[in-house]
């Protein structure tokens, strides 16, 4: 038993490096995709101190809008542009109807509001697009398909799906751009200010309405990117909403307020899941992938509740 836990997996890793690298790659891609979702949560959390329950459904909604427009005869790239506009309108609408009346309310009320928003978007989405899964228009958006096999001498080969490579590249670009935007510009500073203290932000002349609309729009864009990438790997359906909650352990690991944290957290969860499943999963009959992330997050909570990169919790008495 102990041999199976502590020695055998590492022996396997050594003996079959191609398989191990393949697992690492899968973990990396899953991690990047988790990071993308987590990023959407981080944006809203940074600006309003609220866990945006609706982020998952926004992913689905963005994906469905894109595919729905395309199915109705709109050319792929026009559909993409229109979807961005729709996400903008959605952001403005959310700010106007949901957030604005709730300025200065406790966080828990804002959280409840986002739960309400989730159910609204589910109903609204099903009403417009129907409940069936749809195929993502990956090729039409010039996303690469197919795969490349890299040979590893005599030891075998690793297969890289092109869509995974594209996902990684797009995720890295988005994360970098958002990181710079929110850390180096006036809007970014205003955003952090709003997150810290609504009243103080208002008193220095920061318009909460403007900032929230911007942030929700940014989260909408992230949701769209996530929807395309996840959709291309499976289908666009309401089930994606559940996948989005994989971002929760990622956030616990990375810290709710940190963009780099979202990435690192995503990668840790991605690697952890795949490696855990393939090397240790067999010991308990497999299927640990779906809950291992939460166990990692739980253990992490015990030791570093603010996450790897979260703001230090300073309690003054």
């Amino acid at each position, binding site marked *: 038993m102990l041999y199976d836990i502590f020695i055998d997996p590492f022996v396997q890793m050594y003996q079959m490096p191609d398989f191990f690298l393949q697992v690492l790659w899968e973990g990396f891609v899953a991690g990047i995709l988790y990071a993308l979702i987590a990023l959407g949560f981080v944006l809203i959390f940074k600006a309003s101190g609220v866990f945006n329950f609706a982020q998952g459904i926004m992913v689905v909604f963005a994906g469905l809008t894109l595919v729905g427009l395309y199915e109705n005869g709109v050319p792929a790239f026009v559909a993409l542009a229109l979807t961005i506009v729709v996400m903008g309108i959605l952001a403005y609408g959310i700010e106007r109807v949901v957030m604005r009346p709730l300025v200065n309310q406790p966080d828990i009320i804002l959280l409840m509001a986002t739960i309400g928003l989730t159910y609204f978007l589910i109903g609204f989405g099903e009403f417009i697009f129907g409940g069936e899964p749809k195929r993502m228009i990956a090729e039409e958006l010039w996303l690469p398909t197919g795969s490349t096999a890299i040979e590893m001498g005599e030891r075998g080969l690793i297969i890289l799906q092109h869509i995974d490579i594209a996902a990684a590249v797009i995720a890295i670009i988005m994360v970098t751009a958002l990181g710079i*935007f929110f850390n*180096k*510009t*006036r*809007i970014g*500073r*205003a955003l*952090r*200010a709003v*997150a*810290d*203290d609504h*009243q*103080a*932000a*208002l*008193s*220095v*002349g*920061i*318009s*909460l309405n403007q900032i929230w609309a*911007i942030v929700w729009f940014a989260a909408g864009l992230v949701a769209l990117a996530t929807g395309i990438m996840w959709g291309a790997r499976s289908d666009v359906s309401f089930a994606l909403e559940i996948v989005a909650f994989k971002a929760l352990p990622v956030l616990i690991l990375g810290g709710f*307020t940190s963009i780099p944290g979202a990435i690192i957290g995503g990668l840790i969860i991605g690697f952890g899941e795949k490696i855990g499943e393939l090397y240790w999963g067999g010991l308990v009959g497999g299927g640990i992938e779906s809950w291992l992330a939460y166990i990692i997050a739980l253990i992490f909570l015990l030791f570093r509740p603010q996450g790897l990169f979260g*703001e230090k919790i*300073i309690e003054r008495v």
Partner: protein
Amino acid sequence: MNAIVTNNDMTATAPVTEREVLLKVDNVSLSFGGVKAITDISLDIQKGEIRAIIGPNGAGKTSMLNVINGFYHPQEGTITWRGEVRRKMKPYEAATQGIARTFQNVALFKGMTTLDNIMSGRSLKMNKNFFWQMLWRGPAEQEEIEHRRKVEDIIDFLEIQAIRKTPVGRLPYGLQKRVELGRALAMEPELLLLDEPMAGMNLEEKEDMSRFILDVNQEFGTTIALIEHDMGVVMDLSDRVVVLDYGKKIADGPPEEVQASQAVIDAYLGVSH
């Protein structure tokens, strides 16, 4: 900029009656449900003066500040700002029009550094067009540098160079108050509202703060309205004092006059109502 003005020089200020009225509050009443916070108060703030609002706890001082600042909207009465009657306005609109404030319980952006906190005070002075910031960093970057210079001046003025990069959540209370003042100053306000700027400070810190307030008033010509409990400070600093009690105005005038008023003495010593 760092000239030291001692508190005793107060007699040198211009006669108060000559000044233009910057803000006028007429017959304002404010209530929350059945609780009357402010009842029919009128007062004015003249350009260039230091105006104190005092009164026992719960007298409606902070409510008054919140009304001026746009956080509360009074049910009755009007507010005239620079000769124009103000409609219902939001706090950030008040900020746009040149009203800055600090808070009773220090409302800083705790996760951010001193520098970033004060920079945030310049939000309104910076380019409105945020698309530039997203697309191309050139103009936005230059703007940042220019404003940074102004902020450094404020940091020098308040003598907080040493804590520029410290997240304000870690600073002691007295310094936090100073940073908050810095943030308000960064807005280059016409009217500065200070809600208990010296609460919880020791004597030395109070002296520093008094000096800063006087310097701001005299060097930058900023009009200041402040709430303060320390009577010594109030009497030294202010040109005119208004006294509130149970949401009503009970006295208004120069410090000596107010100090001598029987109504004020009663309010502070507690006479049955």
